[in-house]
């Protein structure tokens, strides 16, 4: 039986049974396309193989490193990306669309290309990598710092874009009214603007986290060792084949999904008004 939509917001004829059938056929193929490989990954596992791979210390280390890298990436994105997003939402200046385009560039750069480019800048002889090691003692190759750099490059646009759209949705007049009520600019930001834009900001950070934890191409070039989970899985695949790698892959999938759902819950769980309703 076809699930007929309960409500239909569109021209009446498009909601006809034939169109609904066609829509479910297309949608069904899409959903199968997404879910089948992922479910297949679990179908071949037993609880035993999953536990066994989870007990391997190098797999656990890789997972921990991936999570730490992605969390740090989201924090750095929040620290730099959110204020910049507010600036982009409120300021009008010449070249604003060019700046916005630059923010989007990482979305179109192949990740191995990003990795090589980052290596040339953050590597031993790079313009940032060299001085950073000489003067600050910070190394970007073979370290967590390098992993964060690679993850940040490919995932920062999600935070900046989502937060910018969220800030643009906050009426500047609300900020003005708050100022006249006696609040300084920073209090207005903390009490009015950020809470109202919170959902968009949190969505952006969640996407950045998800993109960061799944990054392979840029990370593998900048930091092969220590291995993040995707790199570890690739190595297991090359060495032992698909069956060995699939257990670790399933484990990474579970961890990523649980964290993703957790963050989404934090983002959307907030009620718009404490004790609201009439």
């Amino acid at each position, binding site marked *: 039986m076809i699930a007929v939509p309960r409500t239909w917001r569109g021209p009446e004829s498009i909601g006809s049974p034939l169109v609904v059938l066609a829509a479910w056929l297309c949608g069904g193929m899409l959903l199968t396309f997404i879910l089948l490989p992922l479910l297949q990954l679990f179908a071949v596992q037993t609880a035993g193989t999953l536990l066994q791979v989870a007990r391997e210390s190098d797999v656990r280390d890789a997972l921990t490193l991936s999570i730490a890298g992605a969390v740090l990436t989201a924090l750095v994105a929040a620290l730099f990306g959110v204020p910049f997003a507010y600036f982009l939402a409120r300021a009008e200046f010449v070249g604003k669309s060019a700046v916005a385009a630059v923010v989007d560039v990482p979305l179109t750069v192949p990740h191995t290309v990003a990795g090589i480019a980052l290596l040339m800048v953050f590597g031993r002889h790079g313009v940032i990598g060299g001085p950073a090691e000489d003067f600050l003692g910070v190394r970007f190759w073979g370290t967590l710092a390098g992993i964060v750099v690679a993850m940040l490059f490919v995932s920062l646009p999600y935070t900046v874009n989502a937060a910018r759209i969220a800030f643009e949705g906050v009426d500047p007049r609300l900020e003005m009214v708050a100022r006249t009520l006696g*609040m300084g600019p920073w209090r207005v930001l903390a009490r009015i603007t950020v809470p109202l834009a919170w959902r968009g900001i949190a969505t952006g950070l969640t996407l950045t986290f998800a993109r960061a934890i799944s990054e392979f191409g840029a990370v593998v070039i900048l930091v092969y060792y220590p291995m993040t989970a995707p790199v570890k899985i690739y190595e297991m695949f090359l060495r032992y084949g698909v069956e060995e790698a699939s257990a670790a892959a399933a484990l990474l999938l579970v961890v990523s999904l649980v964290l993703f759902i957790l963050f989404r819950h934090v983002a959307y769980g907030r009620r718009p008004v404490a004790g609201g*309703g*009439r």
Partner: protein
Amino acid sequence: MTALAVAGLSLRLGAFTLEDVSFTLPANDVMVVLGSNGAGKSVLLETIAGFHRPARGRISIGDREVTALPPEQRRVGFVVQNFGLFPHLSVAQNVALGARGLRRSRAGSDRVDVAALLARFGIGHLAGASPMVLSPGEKQRAALARAEASHPDLFLLDEPFAALDAAARGQLRFELARFLRELRLPALFVTHDYVDVAALGNHLTLMHAGRIIQSGAVDDVFHRPVSRIAADILGFENQLAGRIEGGEAPLVRVSIAGTVLRVAGVAVTPSATGEIYVVLRAENVRLTHPIDAPAGAAENRLIGTVVALEPQGALTKVTLDCGFRLIASLMSRDVPALGLAPGAAVMALIAASDIHLVRP
């Protein structure tokens, strides 16, 4: 005492400008600032509230010069379009925010009882409600209560009704006028709708292209615009080019396309060519049967032909041809009795005191 004094205020902000804006608002009075969109009314209000730094000029609220102060230290109650309630806070939290801002700036000298304030504005039962579920009237009360909680010295209202339908607007206008009287607070009310004027203000200022073009008591400005632009802003339907023919100051003779009208009132210097404009509200043109017009009812009696009828609910707008186009407005229920229809002859009666002259 003066509630607000603005002197020589000039500012350029993108497409908007303020040019040498000066006026004073006496204590406890309400001034309506009227102008078309883009006249600079909102920029003026935002500059008084402290959001734009003027290039020149001074702003004083009460006895404090505030030109260099940030908005949070100016003690103004700001009410914006749709009332600007914070949607993520309850009504009580909105009002408490106004009170907290105050507590910070005045070191806890006088705490505000939020519940009592809500009750005073008749919204005590809505304390825990989200602003998003309030009616426009309730929103207005919440916004006024919130502004009042911060103990402002001056209210600034920026077209709060602009997004509402006509019925709601009338109701809210009535309530706002009552609250402003009860609060005994000076207020500046910005609008592009001249219907707001009489109900709310006792002073009226007209703005055009960043300048004040006329300012004074409501009755004065509302009935005696100084220019065609002022007459436009005030909604004068009839603006007719004419020429002064003669007569002494109390009763001047003006000819419009060959027809002579007698005009009472102040003489206006015409342009070098003797040209002048007659402005007249449609509601001041009385229509009667051409044959049984009451004798001596008005100084001017014109025979005309109906060109078009435009029903607007209770009122009907009638366009006449009297040798020139004349627009009259009358109760729709009187239309059949007068036999008004396109082509019908009718007599228009206009009192000399209802006609006003302005420079071209």
